[in-house]
């Protein structure tokens, strides 16, 4: 492991910890601003959306199998399946697509 990687990890861990720790140590009252509350409420969804698309299309090394996996995930998630079911079905669908693509070639 290089020194640069260790510094990356230290920065990640340090910032993440401070973000969690400082409010618990310093503040003893709730945030009242509706704008701030709403912003923080939307952050996880914005992050996950931005990180998933388009990155997911390069996650399997083949855009077609990735698209098949993503489509499967969307359908199951839409019908409210649990995290693990959605994730494994997406992987399964992508795997089957990889196999079929292998045969076609």
């Amino acid at each position, binding site marked *: 492991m290089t020194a640069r990687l260790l510094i990356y990890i230290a920065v990640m861990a340090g910032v*993440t910890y401070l973000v969690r720790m400082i409010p618990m140590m310093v503040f003893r009252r709730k945030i009242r601003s509706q704008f701030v509350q709403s912003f923080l409420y*939307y952050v996880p969804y914005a992050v996950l959306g931005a990180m998933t698309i388009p990155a997911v299309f390069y996650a399997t090394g083949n855009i077609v199998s990735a698209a098949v996996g993503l489509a499967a995930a969307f359908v199951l998630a839409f019908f409210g399946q649990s995290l693990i079911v959605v994730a494994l079905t997406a992987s399964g669908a992508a795997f089957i697509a990889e196999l079929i693509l292998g045969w076609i070639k």
Partner: protein
Amino acid sequence: MSQARRREFFSGIKDGIPIALGYLSVSFGFGITAVSNGLTIFAAVLISMTNLTSAGQVAGLTVIASNGGMIEMAVAQFVINLRYSLMSLSLSQKLDKGFTPLSRLAASFGITDEIFAVASGRSSDVSKHYMAGLISLPWVGWALGTFLGAAAGQILPEKLKAALGIAIYGMFVAIFVPAARKAIGVLIVVIIAVTASCCLKYIPLFSGISEGFAIIICTVLAAVIGAIFFPVKQEEGGTEE
């Protein structure tokens, strides 16, 4: 430990079991993604043991893989994990009198979406022994799942590994799709974030923007627009992940 303290601790342990099982599977995906980005098993597990957060860790991998700057890493972690501030703030109101500054320092490390949701769902104030129990198993599950995923990533056949590389994105989809179905604000926010992310990736004008900063820009843009046009009511700040 006295009888009451032990009961509190094990009550926390019990509440942490379902969270730990969920983390075991999510972090499995993270482990695979980490080694496919060139990290060692040890580095992947070290990240999970010190960070305990999914979105932030995947964004961190993106920055590491693209050899991004340290400022970029710090700002990305700050923006993506900023929601924990709200949760810490909210939970700080619910800690019982037994909480010393030292136990606050320790408990704040374990604030995640799920742990926050369970702790704040308790009818009474939470004790430090309860929090210690609640955080323990999910932390172990998160580290163990990362180890198993990273190890599997090194021995599994190429096609299977490729297919499992999509697992973590499947989990992300499983979080934002149901939420977007229920709330128009979330739907709009996700659409804006995805559109912005595609623009930054494919429009040559933006090719100078690193991937970590791209995530930050998309997140802030989409969440600000959501907060302006679809403000949420008070007390809805904590979200499921």
